[in-house]
């Protein structure tokens, strides 16, 4: 019995004559059309993400109240901490941009199917690390802000004193702890949801195909 695929092969090569035929001009015009490949989408989204997080970390410094608060809490002479942490932040951004750019450049359509998928996934992973880093920093800063509120801020310290006198200290800590946790949870949930949405749409097929390729591979 003839193999099914061989049967198909015979017909496939016969059918090649019926394929559409584009003229030189038709093909030539296509060279200038815009690509809608996922690599392009990933690139745009990565840039948006980087810009978003950079803006998020810079923005507070332009608020007067934040600046005043900063001076209040640390005193104008103790800016070294702020300068140091800002420099660290900038360094991290530069390193991420460098790695992202390198990974992006390594995406090549001339590679084999598996390698191409891997380089796309690697590019995504770098942005994911960057987002995780930012989330981690955001949580850290939130916690640190609360700590300074209770050790440096006069109003909060007064509040704490009155709570202590009332004897409802435990309840106060429980409630404020819950508020902080809920805030952090909310922030993480929003960002997680955003990721599921964007990359669910964009990369679902790629992940599926990659798994399919890897299956049986030892």
């Amino acid at each position, binding site marked *: 019995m003839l*193999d*099914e*695929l061989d*049967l*198909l*092969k015979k*017909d*496939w*090569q016969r059918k*090649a004559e019926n*394929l*559409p*035929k*584009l*003229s*030189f001009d038709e*093909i*030539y015009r*296509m*060279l200038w*059309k*815009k*690509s*809608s*490949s*996922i*690599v*392009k*989408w990933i*690139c*745009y989204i990565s*840039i948006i993400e980087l810009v978003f997080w950079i803006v998020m970390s810079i923005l507070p410094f332009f608020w007067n109240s934040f600046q005043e608060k900063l001076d209040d809490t640390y005193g104008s002479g103790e800016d070294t901490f702020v300068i140091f942490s800002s420099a660290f932040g900038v360094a991290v951004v530069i390193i991420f941009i460098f790695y992202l*750019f390198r990974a*992006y*450049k390594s995406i*090549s*359509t*001339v*590679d*084999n*199917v*598996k*390698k*191409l*998928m891997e380089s*796309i996934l690697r590019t995504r992973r770098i942005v994911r690390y960057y987002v995780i880093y930012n989330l981690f920093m955001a949580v850290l800063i939130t916690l640190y802000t609360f700590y300074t509120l209770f050790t440096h801020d006069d109003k909060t310290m007064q509040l704490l004193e009155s709570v202590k006198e009332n004897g409802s200290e435990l309840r106060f800590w429980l409630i404020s702890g819950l508020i902080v946790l809920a805030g952090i949870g909310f922030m993480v949930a929003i960002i997680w949801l955003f990721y599921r949405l964007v990359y669910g749409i*964009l990369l679902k*097929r*790629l992940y*599926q*195909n990659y798994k*399919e*390729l890897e299956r*049986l*591979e030892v």
Partner: protein
Amino acid sequence: MCNETEISSTNTKVTYHFSVNKDLEHQFVTELENNQNIVHKVCTLYTNNRDAHKDLFQEITIQLWKAYPKFRGDSKFSTWMYRVALNTAITLYRKSKRSIRTQDYESVIFKIKAEEYDPTEEEQLKLLYKAVKQLGDIDKALVFLYLEDKNYDEISDMLGISEVNARVKMNRIKNKLRTILNP
């Protein structure tokens, strides 16, 4: 950085590139025109209507053109085309049209299965084409390369998997097709 075309920094180089570009364009389009069957075949397998076919053809053309400056000619133009075309169809191209249409194919398959069909060659081929269209992106690529008379060495090289894996996958596809043909 989203634009992959390279622009040289000095003015003298830019004019030089432009004059070369015209030749390059002409050379590229001529080569593609002569080998366009490969792209059309990929489009036939991976899309289900004329609009999508044209759309994918265009995307493959763009990707080929972007990669063309790096094409050294140490492999055949057609071999190089297979890679870029498949990569575009499997990984880079994204259009949601396909998911709506696959349902059509499924219903057609079930209909034919329910009827008592005539096991003539013509009928078998029709069923086979439909069955192949239903396969996943990777399986389709394997079938495509097989139909194009590529050996397992070339197939495994193009997909980036081992030859053993390519053979195992192909056997599975054959079994899948067999069950569709002989329910």
